[in-house]
């Protein structure tokens, strides 16, 4: 009975997901498209959870729906007047893309069918589960991300770092949002500290349960982004130089740890067993800060401008309206 109920639930969300995807791609109005995309991301997070991948569900909800949504909303605010979706793209072009996507889908489905047929033999995932106790953490996902395949994670941090460099290269900081409604500000005042504490929690539990640096960093950035969206002058809390240090600290700590381990144990990032748990936590803490700084900067669209020193920094600025 229970199984049957869950199955029908799964089928239902699957169809809603497909419907949302279709609507997101085909809506003419940008604002509606962005809203649908955020809803799509949240539903996808539910599906990851149903597939028993809670780490992915967390990341999808925070980054895929939350941060990406905020980025899209901000971009939309600046360009919505000039741009409207698919106004100049011809019908022929759209159907060409649709046909190509459909062909790719059929091909992939066919390939996946054959791939699943032969998926036996020694597999990496089983090896990971067996070896996790040696990694210093008990959560296999964290063991893979921070120990077995830590080098991948290091390069992924570099990807995030580079993305911010690209944002910085493309332009200066965008106009802030104006001050929000009082109720909204009051809510954010409650929410932001909770987000910051939750971020710390996600970082800590990563060792034995779903969570970790990416989710924690994104959560921390979400707190800043929320504040910025309601007109709190976040950039007055951050100056150019401290942002630069925050951006590099994650990769810096990661790489230096790797080199020290190379000198001690002969392999890059080969943690000494008794130190593994502590080193992983250290790296994750530094990475959390860098990810948060990177996502915040990507949202702001550029380095915070140097502020006049006289203004009180942390308090919500009541005298100025939100134009920078």
């Amino acid at each position, binding site marked *: 009975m229970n199984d049957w109920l869950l199955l029908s639930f799964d089928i239902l969300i699957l169809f809603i997901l497909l419907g949302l995807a279709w609507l997101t791609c085909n809506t003419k109005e940008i604002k509606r498209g962005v809203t649908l995309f955020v809803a799509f991301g949240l539903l996808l997070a539910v599906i990851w959870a149903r597939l028993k991948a809670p780490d992915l569900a967390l990341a999808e909800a925070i980054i895929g729906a939350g941060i990406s949504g905020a980025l899209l909303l901000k971009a939309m605010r600046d360009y919505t007047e000039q741009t409207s979706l698919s106004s100049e793209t011809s019908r022929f072009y759209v159907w060409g893309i649709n046909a190509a996507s459909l062909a790719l889908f059929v091909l992939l489905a066919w*390939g996946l069918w054959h*791939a699943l047929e*032969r998926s036996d033999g020694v597999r990496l995932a089983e*090896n990971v589960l067996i070896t996790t106790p040696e990694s210093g953490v008990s959560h296999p996902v964290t063991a893979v991300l921070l120990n077995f395949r830590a080098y*991948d994670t290091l390069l992924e941090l*570099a990807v995030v770092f580079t993305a911010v460099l690209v944002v910085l290269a493309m332009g200066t900081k965008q106009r802030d949002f104006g001050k929000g409604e009082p109720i909204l500000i009051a809510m954010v005042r409650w929410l932001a500290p909770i987000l910051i504490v939750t971020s710390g929690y996600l970082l800590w539990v990563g060792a034995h349960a779903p969570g970790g640096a990416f989710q924690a960093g994104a959560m921390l950035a979400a707190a800043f982004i929320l504040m910025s969206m309601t007109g709190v002058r976040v950039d007055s809390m951050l100056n150019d130089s401290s942002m630069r240090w925050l951006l590099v600290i994650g990769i810096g700590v990661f790489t230096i740890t790797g080199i020290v381990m190379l000198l001690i144990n002969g392999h890059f990032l080969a943690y000494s067993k008794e130190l593994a748990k502590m080193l992983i936590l250290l790296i994750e803490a530094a990475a959390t800060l860098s990810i948060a700084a990177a996502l915040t900067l990507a949202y702001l669209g550029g380095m915070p401008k140097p502020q006049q020193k006289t203004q009180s920094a942390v308090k919500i600025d009541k005298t100025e309206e939100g134009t920078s």
Partner: protein
Amino acid sequence: MMINDAIVWLIAIPLLASLLSLVFPKKGTAIAIAGSILGLLASVALVYQVYQSGPITHELGGWKDGLGIVLRVDAMSALFIVMTMLVVTMVGFYASAYFTDAHKKAQFWPLWLMMVVALIALLASGDLFNLYVTLELLGLSAVGLTALSDNRAAVQAAIRYLGIGLLGSLVFLMGVALIYTAYGVLDLAMLATVVEAEPAAQLALALMTAGLLIKSALFPMHFWLPAAHANAPAPVSAALSALVVKVSVYLIIRLWFDVFSPVLQPTASFMLGVLGALAVVWGSWQALRAERLKLMAAYSTVAQLGYLFIFIPLVMAFPVGEERNTALAAFLLLALTHAFAKSALFLSSGVVLQRAGHDRIAELGGTARALPLTIFVIALAGVALIGLPPSGSFLGKWYLISSAVQTGQWWWIVVIAMGSLLAAGYMFRILGHAFGPDESIGKVMAKGSEEIPALILALTATVVLGFGSAWMWDFVNLASPLAGN
């Protein structure tokens, strides 16, 4: 110990230098130059190490049996790495003089060094998923560097480049996912032992190849390249044309012949060769018609990459062993020569563009008198691009032609001859205008720090690789997984 871990240092040094150059923007140039020189030394040590003791592996994290990621360097990757570091170091010297705006310079170094990390990490990677990550890092840093140019066209080209790059990586990732589903391994050496000719592996290889073809701008997927490479700042154009597109070709060769050899179909390799041949003809023809120097250089890249793809059906026609290795060494020689010659050409174009204020080929009269060394470098680069002796590409093309004869695929010879004639056409056209009587460029001077790096690169392409490449054939035979080591 430092020498034995050269490959780790080659990744760690530019990575840390990138971070430092962001934190200390005013010292960016010094940090980047120091990092490049250290990297160049490490890359020479790496080649020496591989030459002495064959292909090397480094298990990151100390995990074995495919649990962790493995760095693997053989002759081919070692030579590509030393090529990358030499080009990057020379272009770095040039860039320190090229960027006059301190703000732009500060933005340039962190991205530039990240691109170096991505290039080396890609060339050293022995893991399928890790390769995807390096491709993303490479694509993103290249986009950022392209956008550093002031003009609007460059930013538009960068955005289009971003879209193309993401499409390529995504298609590549689909292939990786299929392989992981079917075989449960990501390590390239382990995959090579289990992969079979069956639909999942065939589709995966097709997807990964398609992704890489988009990134390496093989005809007809070259449409994004001329705009991006012609509008980027000169040092960036040099690296994009010499290195960034080329490592995708490297990866195709690596995957095809080292990992997926049981899956390969002669028809597919023939098709890649045909596309390469079309690229040679079309790219050279467009280069001949181009009105601007940098656009000509960009189209010439489309053509030169075409030659590298013609090698694929030829390499495939040889059985595993010494003959195949010889063809592979010729491929390497041609790729290396092009990297040095094209970066020299782009750097010189940058000098002309900055000094003359434009790079319209028809109005280059008097340049030879005003910038004699720069025009000399362009001529040297031309020698290598056409494939005249003593350049490395003369030897490369010679072997290309002789293997075409050996394997009975004579039709490629027609294409190679046509490409070389057209290349002679577009290079002599520039020199003709540069030596022309017109005085429009006036009296200008170029700094030594701009001209010397380009000269070194051009001399490497023409003289060093031409006369000093004999050892490469042994090297590839000794230290190549294709040799069965």
